[in-house]
């Protein structure tokens, strides 16, 4: 894509950590300010997607390999549902976080944090997976296009 623009590359390198930190902030500050797992997941994925757009999808796939992404998508759901089952095993209803802490309030707070983390995992990895899938298709189409053009030029 835009692999030759130096300014973009430098700016993106500077921006990346900032976006990731912002994602973490949104994630863990979610119970005080606006935000939460979903928004943080989107932000974190956006960082990698930006990286992929500038440096190419293969480079992004080296940072976060697709095999990891494939596992992360279901893992987030498992974390969420697992928290629910934990409450169930500890003697309360499904998704009741109260028994997770020494006092119900702490349990609730802890539960919310874990659950939001599950959301983060699934959302960010899904966004990446979708990006890889669409981006991979685009690259393939480009390659096919170029091959066709080369063929025409040669004849």
């Amino acid at each position: 894509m835009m692999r030759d623009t130096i300014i973009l590359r430098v700016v993106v390198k500077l921006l990346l950590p900032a976006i990731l930190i912002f994602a973490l902030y949104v994630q863990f500050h979610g119970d005080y300010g606006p935000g939460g797992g979903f928004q943080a997941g989107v932000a974190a994925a956006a960082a990698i997607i930006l990286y992929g757009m500038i440096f190419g999808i293969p480079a992004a796939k080296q940072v976060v390999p697709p095999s990891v992404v494939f596992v992360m998508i279901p893992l987030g759901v498992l974390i969420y549902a697992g928290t629910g089952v934990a409450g169930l095993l500890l003697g309360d209803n499904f998704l009741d976080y109260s028994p997770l802490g020494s006092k119900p309030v702490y349990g609730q707070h802890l539960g919310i944090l874990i659950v939001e983390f599950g959301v983060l995992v699934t959302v960010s990895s899904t966004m990446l997976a979708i990006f890889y899938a669409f981006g991979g298709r685009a690259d393939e189409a480009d390659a096919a296009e170029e091959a066709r053009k080369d063929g025409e030029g040669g004849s």
Partner: protein
Amino acid sequence: MSTILADLNYWVTVFLLVGGLYIVVAHGNMIKKLVGLSIFQTSVYLLFISPGKILGGTAPILDDKYTLYSNPLPHVLILTAIVVGVATIALGLALVVRIHESYGTIEDDDLTDLESDT
């Protein structure tokens, strides 16, 4: 003031909804249909959020400075709805890509012709 604002809100909602729906049912291009679909869904967000607003209230994040808060419930519902919406759009776009690959067109009318031929 409040009645004008209220009516405006509902009128805009209705217009967006009808406009979005019109794009979905009347247009043949599959990508445009999806854009219309997302407008149609977004209008519903307004329909939920508007009744929850309390004039003079503030965002539902507790703070000692405020006593009046807007209704948090619709916000939660709409957060979920937005996510569901984007999931649907993503899936729809993936289908569009595949349809484009195997038929070479994404116009509804062309597709109908192609299918009746086979």
